[in-house]
């Protein structure tokens, strides 16, 4: 006789069931969405929160890291919108079309919807769900990941963006997610972005504001053939921030992904990227800076389905205090993906004796004519280099800052937009200044 041992429900799991039961009828969406939600919730309920015995979540055990599930954040009132506006997070040093989301809801009056370029369509996800036009949801890169299932069950708002074929957006689109209020709440954002054949778009996503929110955000990104897309995601806050990118990249496309994380108590960024057409050139990079007891997990699954694609992955983490950094990167090369050229590097810089880094690069190669490689390092700042800088008159803390900036800079260099590079290096400088 075999018995499956299933741990009893955690408080958070019970609370999620209660919240779903209470909200299922009020969440946006026509009947079609209701069944999508029900199915997704059943997927979650079957296994519960991901925990350390699930390989993909081994280092980020949500049963342990999520002691409670906060209630869904209420729709933002005038005061919340004002707080968001005053938070000063609205402005990026670069000129961009801003789309603002406060406490999980799209706020048109804080957003820049004027003079949309021809071929650019923007709708709120809530409106899309209500319309029932949800055929694409969950289809770009299907996954049975539990965090995505939870997102589908609870998705409240987000954005649907469509860039028509051959349209080049004149300026970046900046999605600003600001959470306000000291009590916090749970926010489930879902977005669906399609960049048409031969179109050009730059997308920036930043998550800011209160550290009391539990955020589950998911973006489905459909990059069509010959398109050129940059996506930069910046995470600066959150009690729990779980983010999923599901990107499918078509033939001869250029795709540049960058993840920057400098805030948030527990952060999990998962990326599922599929190269579905031949001849694509992609860079998937990231940098994170952690301190105190922060926990930042980057989990990447890059799947080469079509041949002749080049991908470069580089992730850098700087870990101070008692923080934990995790990088799991898997490159899968399917049997027909000949001439794949994939290189993945992950480097962790440990600034304290109590910081911890886990690096897990993996290659699964089923084709026989490919070039794939990976490298992982972790270590402290080089004492010889520090002495060289000090011998030139640079004090210890400034010498450390220079070396840390150089370390992170190597990844940030991968961002094409100079203004955005400067913004992020500004974040790095601010982080370093706070460290002293």
């Amino acid at each position, binding site marked *: 006789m075999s018995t499956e041992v299933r741990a009893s429900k955690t408080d958070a799991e019970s609370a999620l069931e209660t919240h779903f039961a209470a909200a299922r009828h009020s969440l946006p969406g026509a009947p079609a969405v209701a069944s999508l939600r029900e199915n997704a919730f059943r997927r979650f309920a079957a296994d519960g929160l991901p925990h350390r015995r699930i390989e993909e979540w081994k280092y980020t055990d949500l049963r342990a890291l999520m002691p409670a599930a906060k209630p869904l954040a209420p729709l933002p009132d005038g005061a919340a919108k004002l707080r968001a506006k005053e938070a000063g997070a609205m402005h990026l040093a670069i000129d961009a079309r801003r789309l603002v989301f406060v406490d999980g809801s799209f706020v048109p009056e804080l957003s820049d919807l004027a003079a949309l370029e021809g071929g650019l369509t923007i709708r709120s996800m809530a409106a899309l769900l209500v319309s029932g036009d949800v055929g694409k949801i969950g289809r770009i890169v299907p996954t049975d990941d539990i965090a995505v299932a939870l997102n589908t069950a609870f998705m409240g708002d987000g954005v649907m963006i469509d860039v028509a074929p051959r349209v080049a957006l004149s300026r970046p689109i900046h999605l600003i997610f600001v959470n306000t209020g000291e009590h916090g709440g749970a926010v489930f954002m879902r977005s669906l972005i399609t960049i048409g054949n031969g179109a050009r778009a730059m997308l920036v996503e930043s998550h800011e504001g209160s550290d009391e929110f539990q955020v589950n955000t998911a973006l489905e990104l459909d990059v069509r053939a010959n398109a050129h897309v940059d996506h930069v995601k910046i995470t600066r806050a959150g009690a729990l921030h779980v983010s999923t990118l599901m990107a499918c990249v078509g033939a001869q496309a250029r795709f540049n992904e960058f993840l920057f994380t400098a805030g948030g108590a527990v952060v999990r960024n998962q990326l599922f990227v599929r190269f579905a057409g031949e001849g694509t050139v992609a860079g998937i990079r990231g940098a994170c800076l952690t301190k105190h007891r922060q926990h930042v997990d980057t989990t990447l699954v890059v799947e080469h389905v079509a041949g002749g694609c080049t991908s470069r992955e580089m992730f850098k983490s700087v870990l101070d205090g008692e923080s934990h950094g995790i990088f799991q990167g898997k490159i899968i090369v399917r049997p027909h993906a000949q001439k794949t050229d994939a290189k993945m590097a992950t480097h962790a810089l440990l600034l304290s004796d109590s910081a911890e880094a886990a690096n897990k690069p993996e290659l699964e190669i089923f084709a026989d004519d490919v070039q794939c490689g990976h490298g992982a390092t972790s270590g402290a700042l080089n004492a010889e*280099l520090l002495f*060289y800088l*000090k*011998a*030139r*008159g*640079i*004090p*210890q803390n400034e010498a450390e800052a220079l070396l840390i900036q150089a370390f992170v800079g*190597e990844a940030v260099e991968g961002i094409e937009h100079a203004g955005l590079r400067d913004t992020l290096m500004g974040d790095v400088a601010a982080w370093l200044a706070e460290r002293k």
Partner: protein
Amino acid sequence: MHLLEVKHLHVEVDGNKILNGLELSVGKGSVHAIMGPNGSGKSTLAHVLAGKQDYVVTQGEVLLDGDDILVLDPHERAAKGLFLAFQYPLEIPGVATMTFLRTAMNAQRKQRGEPEISTPDFLKRVRQVAGKLGIDQDMLRRGVNVGFSGGEKKRNEILQMAVLEPRLCVLDETDSGLDIDALKVVAEGVNHLRAPERSFVVITHYQRLLNYIVPDVVHVLSKGRIVRTGGKELALELEASGYAQYQDAAA
């Protein structure tokens, strides 16, 4: 007063005695060469002067302008006018030479209570010196020493020295790994910096460098102490006779 005075210096590394009661006085404006066989303590002396960790001073004093510098951190010694040209200059990927120089210069100025240098003044100064040393603008924009040849790295050391204008320059085997042309460029750079207020301690294994940087005083270091001191002709004598006699004398 001497610019540098090293008195009865004893130094250990990992429990091994390397310097054994070393005495050295360097007057203002003079060039002292320190020669000696491998393992005599030449590089240890250079590193102890600059303040490297792991070099334990068990006895003795090092005075710069009469002030004890052994209590100072490396960056404080640099601000006080001490410069060590490294035998093996390090590569710093991601830190452009310009950024590095400017950070160093302003850190030293801050330490001395002086205002920061203006951008035009800084650029002018660097360009001037770089031109003389044959260092082009592209090299200045690249990461410090990244992809540089041995000769370029040594020239970059001299560039830093010239820009930072120290009063005591310690050159640790600056000639190692250089061909004759590179050696001449480096020596010219050094000679150009010779001044009544600036002194040099030139550490070398070979006499060759001293044909181009002509010293006022030559010391022979063996087993952690100076065993002979003389004029520039002592270097030539060493070239002819080797170090064997000094190793015996110190034993």
